[in-house]
């Protein structure tokens, strides 16, 4: 029978907390940039300028058909080197955190843009017709009439995607960046207590994500009422 020994966790809490901060930072940047860039992509896809719409669709389909780990590896291994070669930067700079943020933001934007596109479609055609009848331009109709309603319809989906994104940040493990999961694994490896630390990490993720998803559900019910 396995003998549990949880004693290495209390001492490691500051390190784990720092890891959690890294996870949350990556999540926050990816959500903000992802939604802004995702909205632009969604609007471009509906644009009447065909090449722009195709470019946006190509971007979304490219990122949606490649695994996140693969995207992260590109941004950890290939892109920094490429940029360093291009601009003759020093080799010493640690770009992993920035790489992770950029990689996640560009990847998530593709998923956010699909949610936002569905949200835009959920706004009735009559609304756009009415906006045009009032003399609004296409841009005005989109900005003042369609998007505000679309975003209200999308809030639960956007939040659910944020929870998935938070879970996915654990994949920065492939770059050995110490996010919460990476930190827990490192402590476990150092103390020979991988079992305890992995169970602890799993429990923390579960509590956070379950609580967040309950909140989203409550929000959804209140919006529906």
């Amino acid at each position: 029978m396995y003998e549990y020994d949880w004693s290495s966790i209390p001492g490691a809490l500051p390190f784990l907390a720092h890891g959690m901060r890294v996870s949350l930072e990556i999540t926050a940047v990816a959500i903000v940039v992802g939604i802004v860039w995702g909205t632009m992509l969604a609007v471009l896809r509906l644009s009447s300028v065909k090449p722009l719409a195709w470019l946006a669709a190509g971007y979304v389909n490219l990122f949606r058909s490649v695994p996140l780990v693969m995207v992260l590896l590109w941004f950890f291994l290939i892109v920094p080197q490429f940029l360093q070669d291009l601009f003759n930067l020093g080799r010493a700079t640690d770009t992993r955190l920035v790489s992770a943020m950029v990689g996640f933001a560009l990847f998530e934007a593709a998923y956010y843009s699909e949610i936002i596109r569905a949200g835009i479609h959920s706004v009735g055609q009559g609304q756009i017709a009415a906006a045009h009848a009032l003399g609004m331009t296409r841009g005005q109709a989109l900005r003042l009439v369609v998007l505000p309603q679309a975003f209200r319809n999308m809030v639960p989906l956007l939040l659910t995607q944020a929870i998935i994104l938070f879970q996915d940040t654990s994949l920065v493990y492939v770059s050995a960046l110490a996010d919460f999961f990476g930190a827990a694994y490192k402590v476990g490896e150092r103390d020979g207590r991988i079992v305890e630390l992995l169970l602890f990490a799993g429990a923390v993720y579960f509590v956070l994500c379950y609580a967040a998803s309950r909140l989203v559900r409550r929000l959804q019910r209140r919006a529906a009422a």
Partner: protein
Amino acid sequence: MSYHWNWSVFLQPAPSGDATYLDWMLSGLQVTVALSLAAWAMALILGALIGVLRTVPGKSIGRGAAAYVEVFRNIPLLAQLFIWYFVLPEILPGGTEFKQLNPMAQQFVAAMVCLGFFTSARVAEQVRAGIESLPRGQRAAALALGLTTPQTYRYVLLPMAFRIIVPPLTSEFLNIFKNSCVCSTIGLLELTAQGRQLVDYTAQPYESFIAVTLLYMAINAVVMLLMRELEKRARVPGHIGSR
């Protein structure tokens, strides 16, 4: 930029045996496909079962099934994989036998079980949504005809529900291929891992990464085409979801 492109690197012999680097890539592709298909079969069976349990009358069964779904949905895939691979063999009976298997088999089994359970929770949600989308009268009519609850599911609810949920299942099926690359972290030599190995051995990162990325896109395209055909055949005439 002074990168030396060399696409013929794939035809060069790899250090192990008489294989070329191209053979490495193809064996990685095989592992990825085999792993994803095995895990998908598991996810469909488990997911259908749990999804049905979430809709049967009786509160405690439904609650248990809901807990199952929440556990597998609220822990990151990577954490689940590490728990299956590093933790459970230590704390479960039978773990010592598992650790005596050859490493490749251990990795494959852990990866398959992990992806299978992870995806089954998502499949279960789709199955539940499909069953709940059916008009209530269908269940009532089946029971009024004298069918038992299992018969109601077997002959009335599930045949319709499965046809309705084919489109959302397509995206879960695509996801399982993409998620399978997380399994490179436990040392399983699937497509991503082979790609990284190629970078280490040949120092031609661009060729290797471009090849791996294109292969994932190819898998994606093939699955999408096949599922589109299935969606066409499974479509329920006159149902809201069908066009």
